[in-house]
């Protein structure tokens, strides 16, 4: 049986590696300082991706600035204020689980209906960022909750014995200790958000110039790759280079997260 397993494992590693190789080989020629610092011209066939990088950073920032407080609040509530077997915990957990397994296009639909149309934000960085926030919240909450629960029990015991208020314990002891874990959660969520395309196509829109404000439309790297490869004949060169940039960025982000703390991530719970 042994050779069979080696063979299968080899297959499972070689094919993706070939794909990565293709991406690197095709993208590298187009990569340059100019590419990273110029705006796109000729609907993206030439020029660079500067405004796209800007829009990407903006959308990510909006997403994280909503995810962090909301998700942290929820995680603290789940970990510190209610019993994990109570019905409140089970209902919240269930709704987060369903949210986590929701296909990403649904967030696009929802974001379009709620943010773009109903709240009248239109196709904008804001709509895109908020929709992304809805999508990454379950991941962020679950990872943060993990980190909070990992706080060593003797700190909790000491705080109880000294009759320290719960709010004091959370703000002064728990959060600082869990800092790394929360950072990991944030980084993982960023990686996930960056990889998304379907959510953004009809919330943040397609515009490829520099957005003026959060209410203006813009496109991220992933949307740019999609547009260039599907809608712009001859755009493949730049699409390949953008793909390389995106992959490198995400690899960097995810490696940082995993390096920071292996013990906050477990694959049996998170449907990443």
């Amino acid at each position, binding site marked *: 049986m042994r050779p069979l397993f080696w063979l299968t494992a080899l297959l499972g*590693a070689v094919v993706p590696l070939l794909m990565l190789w293709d991406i690197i080989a095709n993208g590298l020629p187009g990569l340059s300082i100019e590419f990273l610092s110029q705006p796109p011209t000729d609907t993206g066939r030439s020029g660079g991706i500067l405004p796209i990088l800007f829009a990407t950073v903006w959308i990510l920032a909006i997403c994280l600035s909503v995810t962090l407080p909301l998700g942290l609040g929820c995680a603290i509530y789940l970990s510190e204020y209610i019993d994990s077997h109570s019905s409140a915990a089970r209902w919240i957990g269930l709704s987060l689980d369903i949210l986590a397994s929701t296909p990403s*296009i649904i967030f696009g639909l929802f974001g379009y209906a709620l943010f773009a149309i109903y709240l009248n934000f239109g196709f904008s960085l804001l709509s895109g960022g908020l929709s992304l926030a809805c999508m990454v919240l379950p991941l962020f909450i679950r990872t943060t909750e993990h980190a909070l629960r990992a706080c060593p029990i003797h700190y909790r015991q000491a705080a109880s014995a000294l009759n320290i208020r719960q709010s004091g314990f959370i703000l002064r002891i728990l959060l600082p200790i869990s800092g790394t874990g929360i950072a990991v959660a944030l980084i993982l969520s960023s990686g996930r958000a960056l990889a998304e395309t379907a959510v953004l196509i009809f919330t943040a829109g397609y515009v490829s110039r520099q957005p003026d404000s959060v209410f203006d439309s813009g496109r991220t790297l992933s949307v740019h790759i999609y547009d260039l490869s599907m809608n712009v004949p001859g755009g493949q060169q730049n699409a390949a280079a953008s793909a390389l940039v995106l992959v490198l960025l995400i690899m960097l982000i995810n490696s940082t997260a995993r390096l920071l703390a292996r013990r906050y991530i477990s*694959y049996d719970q998170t449907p990443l």
Partner: protein
Amino acid sequence: MAIDLWLPRILQLCAWLCAAIIIAIMTFLLLESLPLIIESGFWSFFQLQAWQPEENRFPLLAMLIGSLLVASGAMLIATPLGIAAAIFGRYYAPTPLAIAYRGLMELLAGIPSVVFGFWGLTILVPWIAHWSPPGASILAGILVLTLMILPLVVLTCDAALLKVPPQYLHGATALGLSRWGTIRHISLPTAFPAIASGIVLQMGRALGETMAVLMVCGNVIQLPDSWFSPVRTLTANIALEMSYAMDNHRAALFASGLLLLLSATALMLLADHYRQKNCVQY
């Protein structure tokens, strides 16, 4: 102290807000699609006729079948490969290789679907076109989706195998039992509920995948007659038509979104059921 009064309330608000998101999503999907469902009737969506927005006809069946075929095909390939690769990493590979392998899988798991789609579009589809034009087909979709799902299947199975109590394995070694015998009779049955749960979860993800299948499946709404026929999945349909859909057409897209959400939820609950079974010690 005042802070102890309002801090718990704020946190509770955050928690329920987060929990409410899925309710909001379902509500919006329902609101947008209900008029059409009431007007045309529930079963009108499950006809095999052509999708004709101009004629007010929105049968989803062909696209649903397309989604199911692509997702199932990918899972059928990825599942045995993934389990075997996980067994390799846990039981046959020397430790440094196993760590490197897992690291590779983790890296691959983070690669965006649009990049897989791009590779499929520029490399895989032309290659398939050599054998049978046009190239964009179910086969392309299955292969690309398999590549996407495989790392996650490997990682979930690996986590499941890790949970097998080491004392079973020590006992087996002390009895001089063969490695494959131990894996087959002890490790796999013990890890099975967790593996099953992971597989079902990945199936849900495969069904919900949009970009990669959109880019390589050809997007013709039809019942496929061979592996080389182009198809359109439900997800791709929404992505392609949403920007110009009006009124009933748009409602139909929301309805297909609702269908997707319900299927994904059903699969997730099934996966959860398997995971609960795992926790029950007999």
